[in-house]
């Protein structure tokens, strides 16, 4: 049942089938008409002088090339317009990545709630270090979504980031630590 639902959802997600504009068909029809005329010319009666026929054929040859190119372009256009292009497949985020996202969101909210202050220089390198570490842990989680211990490492890093930010804000605002 789930498989059926999934297939239906994927089908619904495909782009709608579109009909080429009318002018594309008109162009193709005009070119086909010219082609038919050329075929009739090839079947000329024996009474017509051979030189005249050759001259007429030479005059019309470039138009044959133009017809081929035109048909090719029209076909390519039709393919581009009508056939849906495959979208690049990106794997859905793993459970661990989703948990990491939730964790990051919660700590960001907690830090945003702290009063804005210029943080003392003593704390700055460590705060940058913690941010860089959190990024590298999240990259490791994306690489290996089965390593549950990495989530613990991420949580520890975010908790430390929050604690240090609180300390730095208190030091900057003169509040007791």
């Amino acid at each position, binding site marked *: 049942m789930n498989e059926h639902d999934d297939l239906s959802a994927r089908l619904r997600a495909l782009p709608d089938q579109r009909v080429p504009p009318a002018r594309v068909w008109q162009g193709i029809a005009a070119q086909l008409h010219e082609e038919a005329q050329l075929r009739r010319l090839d079947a000329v009666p024996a009474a017509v002088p051979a030189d005249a026929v050759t001259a007429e054929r030479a005059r019309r040859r470039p138009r044959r090339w133009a017809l081929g190119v035109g048909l090719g372009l029209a076909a390519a256009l039709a393919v581009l317009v009508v056939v849906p292009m495959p979208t690049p497949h990106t794997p859905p985020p793993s459970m661990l990545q989703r948990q990491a996202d939730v964790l990051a969101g919660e700590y960001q909210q907690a830090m945003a709630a702290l009063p804005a202050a210029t943080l003392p220089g*003593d*704390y700055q*390198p*460590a705060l940058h*270090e*913690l941010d860089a*570490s959190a990024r*590298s*842990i999240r990259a*490791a989680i994306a*690489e*290996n979504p089965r*390593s549950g*211990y*990495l989530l*613990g*490492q991420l949580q*520890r*890093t975010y908790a*430390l980031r929050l604690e*240090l930010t609180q*300390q730095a804000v208190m*030091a900057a605002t*003169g509040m007791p*630590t």
Partner: protein
Amino acid sequence: MRTLLPLSATLALLLPLAALADTHVDERHPLAAGGRVEVSNIAGKVTVRGWDRNEVALSGSMADGLTLKQDKSTNRVRWEVVYPRNSNTRGGATLTLRVPRAVEVQLGTVSADIDVSEVDVRRLQANAVSGDIAAAGRSGETTLGTVSGGIRSRVQTPRLEVRAVSGQVQAGGGISGEITAETVSGSIRVEAERVQRLSAEAVSGSVDVAVGGLAPGGKVALQTVSGSVGLALPAMVSAQLNVKTFSGGIQSDAGKVERPRYGPGRSLDTRLGGGDGDVSINAHSGSVRVTLRR
């Protein structure tokens, strides 16, 4: 007149120095075993030494403009160096604290270094931001934490917690029982005796642990993301050893390293001796080395 001129000039030069003179500190308070003493100072240095008296003493000097705030009760004394807000005070306070046996000592600094030795206390807690912490002596429970400062512990303690962000952590000198060491980018080096629980975690920092013995059912857990891990165990240890990495290599004196037929990852799972305790190592891209000491 000729002698007065240089004299007045010298006095004029010395006058600003007199205005910047340090304030001397000399405080005492009776404190019996079980009491608690706390010292808070931003810059300078805090030195702690033990003695055989039932009182605590704080001595030293503070830069001009700093004041000492005191909060005393029968079983507790707190000294805090107060720095004036928005002032250009240069220099901090250099303080020495003498503590009796079996008290709790709690120290907090920002850039001031902390130096503790010759103590025998119930509990030692020291925190700094950029200051270094060096601690030795005996303590029933020890917690040391810095942000960028280094930690060097030679405290004989059955319970140790050391935490740093980018600072290096070194701990030895008779630690046993329960040990926790955590850093982010700083390295961890722990030399422990008989261990009940040992946990060491780093992100990019390396972890090097040597264990003298494992208590029955003891646990050792080491984790890094990109830092390397080194563990030395006694050859006669009884534990189940489990090592997992994603892209890091594994070298071990015991067990066989397994690799999946497809995909990344390495693992090792083996029994050492009777397999009583648990030793687990997790590293993402860091390499792991397990040595058995004969």
